[in-house]
């Protein structure tokens, strides 16, 4: 599935620019959308899901023009959407809620619909609790209902907005694996501010900041940009020995009596004897990119 955005803008009432001249080209597989809170990711997801209209610019999905009502309706048939805050009717049970969503998605054959609901309850491991009211579900279970509802119409395009927020580590890993599996057969757009989620699932990504795309490419490209800028600095436990200079600390780890800092910076920290250059991770690269943009942007 091909998604093309050209000069996409979204201005909210009050003149808030949520998206500014966004140009993106997305094709099949898992695609990550990364950025800090307030970067415009959710706005972009909502536009793609047909909930918001762009203020200007062009958007086409699989050749359908999103600026027309007809185009939006056609895309909705191909779409599965898991919003950031997944809402449910608390008094319905999981099976009923999924059946209701399937109706709203246009699945008309009752038997086929019920089969699909049962199938997806199995996929997200909720069969045993399918008759329990949704108000008794935990956050993780509701997320699983969310992914099941998004898959009801077997969408070619799956949009998931911050899907792992609020999940415990085990649930998060489960969810990431599920998304990776889904990405083998369809386009999955994963929006998140958690770098690890992208690192584990996506080959291609875009990074948004203040409504603008500041990077678009592969995770390898992004990592390449930070090569030679990442250091491990080991100091004694004293806070006074914390690395100084024009660097950003990515992580701090206490090892016996010493402290190991992982830092990014153009130059090695002041006392080079203790700094060892290391291979950047995606998180290091993201921090590097954000740091660079903060330094040079007006």
């Amino acid at each position, binding site marked *: 599935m091909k998604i093309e955005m050209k000069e996409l803008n979204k201005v*909210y*009432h009050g003149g808030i620019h949520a998206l500014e001249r966004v140009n993106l080209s997305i094709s099949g597989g898992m695609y990550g959308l990364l950025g800090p809170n307030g970067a415009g990711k959710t706005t972009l997801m*909502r536009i793609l*899901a*047909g*909930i*918001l*209209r762009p203020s200007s610019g062009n958007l086409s999905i699989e050749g359908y023009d999103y600026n027309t009502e007809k185009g939006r*309706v056609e895309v*909705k*048939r191909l*779409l599965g*959407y898991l*919003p950031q*805050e*997944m*809402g*449910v*009717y*608390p*008094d*319905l049970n999981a099976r*009923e809620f999924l059946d*209701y*969503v399937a*109706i*709203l*998605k*246009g*699945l*008309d054959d009752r038997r086929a619909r019920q089969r699909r609901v049962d199938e997806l309850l199995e996929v997200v491991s909720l069969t045993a609790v399918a008759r329990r009211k949704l108000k008794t579900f935990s956050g993780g279970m509701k997320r699983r209902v969310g992914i099941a*509802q998004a898959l009801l119409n077997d969408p070619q395009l799956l949009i998931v907005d911050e899907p792992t927020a609020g999940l415990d580590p085990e649930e998060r890993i489960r969810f990431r694996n599920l998304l990776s599996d889904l990405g083998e057969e369809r386009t999955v757009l994963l929006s998140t501010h958690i770098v690890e989620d992208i690192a584990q699932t996506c080959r291609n990504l875009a990074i948004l900041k203040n409504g603008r795309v500041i990077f678009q490419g592969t995770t390898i490209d992004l990592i390449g940009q930070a090569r030679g800028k990442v250091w491990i600095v080991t100091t004694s436990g004293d806070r006074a020995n914390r690395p100084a200079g024009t660097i950003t600390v990515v992580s701090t780890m206490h090892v016996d009596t010493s402290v190991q800092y992982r830092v990014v910076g153009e130059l090695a920290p002041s006392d080079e004897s203790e700094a060892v250059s290391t291979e950047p991770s995606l998180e290091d690269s993201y921090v590097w990119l954000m740091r660079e943009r903060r330094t040079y942007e007006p």
Partner: protein
Amino acid sequence: MSQRAILWGVIRYEFKMQARRRSLWIVFAGIALIMLAAIPGNVINSGRNLQGMSLLQQVAAVTLDINWLPALGIGVFLADRFPRERSNRVDELFESMVGTLNTRLAGKYLGCLLATLLPAFLAYCFAIIFLAFSKHTLLVLPLSLITYTVIVVPGVCFVTAFTLACTSLMWVPLYQFFFIGYWFWGNMLGPKNGLPTLSTTILTPRGSFIAAGLFGISPLNWTQGATPLPGIASLLLLLLIPLLVMLLFYRYLRWQQSRK
């Protein structure tokens, strides 16, 4: 799937969700008991009110008497139906689906209306069965369906539309407070106490003008001598105004969406 099939599905689920509310049944049962047993002069209690009336008029009189319940219940129990789409955050999710806003709105209107009407209708059925026994005729049953459809349903449609639309602009408990207040002052105290009310006009959802004009039942001063014309006008207005209200409500929601 056509929007018609989606509409049917929405009606089914809205009906199910509303009919499952325990409070709906408890409150309706309580009010029905008070009305049937405790109000002196009730047509069911004292058969003398029905004397000299044809069977159709007697059925219409019972229908009018019991028409306190449905609109009151709708004003109270339908008030949260629309705002809860937002509070449960399902509106964003549903917006990304092929079921259109007007289909969902129409489904909500009909499903909630029918579910809320159900306990009131059952209370009415008890009254009608009682009447059928006391009159020794089953003809009461088809007649009661006619009078219910003509006297009760238009007012209920009217109140449903206003309740759904008003609660998109107003805090739900405040609406419920005003609605209950209005229902009692409008229907019990009325204009003779200097209170503004629709109850003396053909727009009264109580169906007084319909009952007076079409069935010759005039328990109230202001409907006495009413001809069929105000009855028909009342019936048509109570059905057409909700259509208009729902259309305007839909337009308002679309406008809100476009401003997002």
